[in-house]
């Protein structure tokens, strides 16, 4: 078992770290204060190829593996969670779903421009009245001849106002689980309206919004998978979105740890640096433990994706652990900083506000607890999927096709 990262993985991680250190970290606090997404973020991530990092070259991507995606997410969130959210929705929830479930035609039409960064993508599952209760989705898609007509509201959608493509899950039949279907929606279609949601506790430098669909006509070719497969597709999307959240939260723990170590060396009290006090040391020790454990959990999940192994359980475990731990780490990091941690002069209060989002979205911590108990007690088993996430084959993925 080789726990070392390959040279390639290390270089990818370093490159993204350089990008965030030079271009993002110096300005992100300002954008967080303004509660606005910086206009340069998406274009720069597109330009650098980050938006297609783990999509095969033949589909417009950079041809790296799922581990690279995790490492990139760790680095992005160490700067600010909102950057990793871009990867969660554009790549995890949307692009990887196209890779897994899309027809060749759909991949050519939608995945290629997304992987190239020409189009940004988001994921429309949640509704004002349905979050954890996915089967409670009310938005509808009615088959009319060669088209579907979409009606409904989606809410808490990251990049709603910034993306051009959305993957939406709507009701095509009555049955709670078997009545859902997934669709690719171009957000410039007639009848689509989007807007931003403000006043969030955290993720303020990001874009969160709503999508409203009123009699939106889309060709039948925009349907992803079969009618009635929407629930299964949504769950598999979450396997990938959650993976990016787990990796990102790991980066957030690392950011809390580094900030705390730096402050513990720099601040003196009672004639010595506060790192000398045991209760400060304890907090830092727990951050180290959380960081290393979270890291191993998400890398293991990424490795399984590379192998083509079903990883719903392992990814859920990684997401639950890392996000809960990042919330604790951020709270303790503020404590280490004392009064200064309470001010936005330092980054740690922003880490805390951002971390709270991650324990809610992509499956609340409570949902994950139920999942893990379900697996352990034998109440829950993963059924095979009609389409599996492709395993990583270096030759195939790196070839121009």
């Amino acid at each position, binding site marked *: 078992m080789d726990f070392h990262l*390959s*040279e*390639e993985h290390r*270089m*990818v991680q*370093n*490159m993204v770290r*350089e*990008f965030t250190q*030079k271009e993002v970290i110096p300005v992100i606090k300002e954008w967080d204060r303004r509660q606005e997404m910086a206009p340069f973020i998406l274009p720069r991530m597109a330009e*650098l*190829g980050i938006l297609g*990092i783990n999509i095969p070259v033949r589909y417009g991507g*950079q*041809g*790296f593996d799922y581990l690279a995606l995790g490492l990139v997410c760790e680095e992005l969130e160490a700067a600010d969670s909102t950057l990793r959210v871009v990867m969660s929705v554009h790549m995890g929830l949307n692009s990887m779903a196209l890779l897994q479930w899309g027809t060749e035609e759909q991949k050519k039409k939608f995945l290629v421009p997304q992987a190239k960064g020409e189009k940004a993508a988001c994921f429309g599952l949640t509704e004002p009245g349905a979050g954890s209760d996915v089967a409670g989705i009310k938005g509808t898609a009615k088959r009319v001849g060669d088209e579907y007509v979409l009606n409904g509201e989606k809410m808490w959608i990251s990049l709603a106002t910034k993306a051009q493509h959305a993957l939406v899950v709507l009701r095509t039949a009555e049955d709670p689980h078997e009545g859902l279907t997934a669709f690719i929606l171009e957000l410039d279609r007639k009848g689509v309206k989007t807007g931003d949601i403000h006043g969030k506790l955290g993720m303020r430098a990001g874009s969160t919004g709503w999508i409203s669909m009123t009699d939106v006509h889309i060709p039948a070719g925009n349907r992803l998978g079969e009618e009635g497969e929407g629930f299964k597709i949504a769950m598999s999307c979450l396997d990938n979105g959650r993976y990016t959240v787990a990796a990102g939260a790991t980066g957030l723990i690392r950011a809390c740890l580094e900030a705390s170590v730096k402050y513990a060396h720099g601040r003196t009290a009672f004639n010595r640096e506060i790192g000398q006090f045991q209760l400060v040391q304890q907090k830092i020790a727990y951050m180290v433990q959380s960081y290393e454990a979270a890291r191993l959990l998400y890398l293991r999940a990424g490795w399984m994706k590379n192998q083509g192994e079903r990883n719903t359980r392992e990814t859920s475990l990684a997401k639950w652990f890392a996000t809960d731990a990042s919330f604790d780490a951020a709270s303790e990091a503020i404590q280490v900083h004392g009064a200064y941690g309470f001010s936005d002069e330092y980054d740690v209060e922003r880490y805390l506000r951002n971390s709270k989002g991650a324990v809610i979205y992509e499956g609340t911590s409570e949902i994950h607890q139920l999942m893990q108990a379900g697996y352990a007690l034998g109440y829950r088993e993963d059924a095979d999927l009609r389409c599996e996430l492709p395993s990583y084959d270096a030759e195939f993925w*790196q070839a121009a096709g």
Partner: protein
Amino acid sequence: MKIAVFVKQVPDSAAKMAVDNGTVTWGEAPLVINPWDEYAVEAALVLAEKYGGEVSALSLGGESAKEALKHALAMGCGEAILISDPAIPSPDAGATARILAAAATKLGVYLAIFGKQAIDADTGLTAPMTARLLGWPSLTLVAAITQLDAVAKSIRVERGIEEGRQVVEGKLPAILSIGKDFGEPRYPSFMGIRKASKAEIPTWSLAELGIPAPEIKVSWPEIFSPPPREVSGDLITGDSAEEIASKLVDKLLAAGVL
């Protein structure tokens, strides 16, 4: 048209440096490509893109120098070569210049580019020394390259000097060293990273360069940590900005620095 760029592997600039039994140590800090050399690689790549040509990255060092070379490859250099020989464990600037001059000759380049200085020894001597050995114009501290004519064999640069900028025209082949004003170096691209990690980096020995081990002229009998600065900082306080300013000026006048 070939361009060479010389890079060095050095401890990260944020590293805590210490001396342990006469050897310099940098703890857990990583070895990185000399930051100034990234500007040199950027300049080489910009020139190759604009005027056509191949960029070869070279480094004089041990196996670890391959990391700096891989960074240069990932930024876009076409090839990388390590120069290594047990006969020259710690060359001084002059010895380094002799070796790099031989490499430039062997490659047959029309431009060889250095970073301003290496952040370990901080000498800034190697570029002009290499130019002198080759008999090529030395154009150091280049902030911009405004013209390059491969047919007329001339280059025009702006150099950053204390008093501002000096515009100099020189014949090719020439040696350049690049200052910071040149422009931010590009990140390694993902495709570049893939290429770099798969690349084979050949090693040239002194025999392959056709030169004997150069003499070392400068020796370092001692390396030590600087004595800690005795700073008793005084915080100046007061009820108004004017009061504070007044007190501070008093102190500065007493200290004789005004």
